């Protein structure tokens, strides 16, 4: 028995003595924010982003990311300072007081990590509160861009930093459909079910590809053989999500998510890392 885990990224799921799980379609949560902390540590001081506020939902996905970020940003010699650090329940739908409290800490960059509903509420409350920050990062605008665009509007997303997933990168896959092909197929199949096309749709597609490839390479369907087959793909399989890469405990560490920023027209441009960037970060009043 081997658990194909599509997108359950909690770091606690994976350990060396647990050979029963492999993560398929996105990186483990502790790796998700790698470009984010690199961006803050390397570019932040130059851009005047030295005081960081961290607000996160206390579930596994966002909580783990917050922990990884905190550790990285507090490392000895860090040029930035965390001035606000609060977790909120994932059920939180009211951010006005939190935004006010964050403003009281006078941060340069606000990093808000939530689920879809959290990010919608946060960004709407931010827009309606009249509070301005130099820079704001939110997690889901880059993951479920359609949903966020519909709920927050491009006026609410303008200037927001977020992860750029396969949605915004449009990588050329060696296995599976291209972004345009997948989007078309998805709209055809699910267009009127009310489920928006987003990064999770890509993750589902990639999961299918990894399983297909694994089955093609497996000698038997026994756990050890399946696991060996999945590991044999590591570093080789290039999908819409990027290069699939497994750590020995089964956590996925490839498919990294660069940092992007929305422009006023609602386009998401990559601003970090430099080798992928197609725009410069704009620091202003978000």
């Amino acid at each position, binding site marked *: 028995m081997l658990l194909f885990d599509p997108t359950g990224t909690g770091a606690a799921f994976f350990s060396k003595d647990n050979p029963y799980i492999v993560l398929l379609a996105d990186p483990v949560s502790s790796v998700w924010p790698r470009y984010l902390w690199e961006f803050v540590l390397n570019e932040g001081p130059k851009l005047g982003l030295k005081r960081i506020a961290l607000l996160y939902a*206390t579930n596994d996905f966002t909580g783990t990311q917050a922990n990884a970020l905190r550790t990285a940003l507090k490392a000895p010699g860090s040029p930035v300072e965390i001035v606000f650090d*609060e*977790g*909120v*329940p994932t*059920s*939180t*739908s*009211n*951010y*006005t*007081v*939190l935004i*006010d*409290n964050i403003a*009281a800490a006078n941060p340069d960059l606000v990093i808000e990590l939530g689920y*879809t*509903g*959290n990010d*919608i*509420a*946060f960004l*709407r*409350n931010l*827009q*309606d*509160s*009249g*509070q301005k920050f130099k820079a704001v990062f939110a997690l889901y605008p880059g993951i*479920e861009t359609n*949903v966020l665009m*519909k*709920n927050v*509007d491009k006026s609410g997303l303008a200037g927001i930093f977020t992860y750029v997933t396969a949605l915004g990168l449009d990588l050329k896959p060696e296995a599976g459909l291209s972004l345009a092909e997948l989007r078309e197929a998805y709209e055809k199949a699910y267009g009127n*079910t*009310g*489920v*928006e096309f987003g990064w999770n749709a890509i993750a589902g597609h990639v999961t299918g590809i990894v399983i297909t490839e694994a089955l093609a390479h497996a000698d038997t369907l026994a756990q050890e053989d399946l696991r060996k087959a999945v590991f044999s793909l590591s570093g080789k399989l290039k999908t819409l999500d990027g290069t699939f890469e497994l750590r020995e405990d089964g956590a996925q560490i490839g498919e990294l998510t660069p940092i992007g920023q929305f422009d006023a027209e609602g386009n998401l441009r990559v601003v970090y890392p430099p080798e992928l960037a197609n725009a410069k970060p704009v620091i202003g009043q978000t």
Partner: protein
Amino acid sequence: MLLHALAGGLVYGCYFALLGLGLNLVFGVMRIVNLAHGDLIMLGAMAAYFLYHLAGLSPLWAAPLVAGGFFLLALPLYAALLPRLLAAREAEMLSFTLFFGLQQIIEALAAIAFGPSERSLPARSLAAGPIVLLGQSVPKSWAFSALVAVIAIGLFYLSLHHTRLGLFTRAVMASPEEAAASGIDLSRISAIAFGLGVALAGLAGVFAPFMLGSVTPAMGASLNLVAFATVVVGSLGAPLGTIFGGLVYGVGLLLMQTYFSTWADLLPDLLLIAILLFRPSGLLGRRLRVA
């Protein structure tokens, strides 16, 4: 920070009073618990969403339309479900089962019909930007929602205390047996109360996309918990106590977010436990039920 939590909490609390009001009215009159209340709020939100996006109707126009429509839709629902329930010996307990089932059905059908994605109304459909209240800036759309809630609650109060129907309704709430013996038509009052309860849920729903950021078909259950907390804190069976309960919840939530943000969603549970331990009849209430 404290002032902001208080000011924002009062505005937020007005809305939560509206959220619980219908639930408490139905409980007060019929001694049944409408566990589908939160899902009716969700349906009200969906109705407002489609009225805005398909018909271009502002939430302020949608509000009376949804409330009126929900009232009319509630009457056949009442006729189909309630008389048999109310005739049962353990109506209060059975109502949990019945309305839990209804809640599941509504949620499932809504998920099929609308899909699980978050939906919302743009703030500009009501009012964009901030407004300064008590020296604190809060979203204008919240202030509008709270204002509508205050108006609805005010009208509800007036009709409950200054109309004949209101007097009959309060008589039924005070003692159904005695009211029936006094010649009050229980089933008529109950049907109207149920209709009003559903209408108030629908009305609260119209403003949910502003107050809660976004809405999904699955939001009903958690709204139920909040509505139940505001009702119990105020006083079970006394609709006006719910106003107080809503304010306690609103201010409490924002204070929790300010000082213990990680634990904020424990608030409804904490309030419920505290009330059950120390003031089972609610902060404002007398003991209304024996069981």
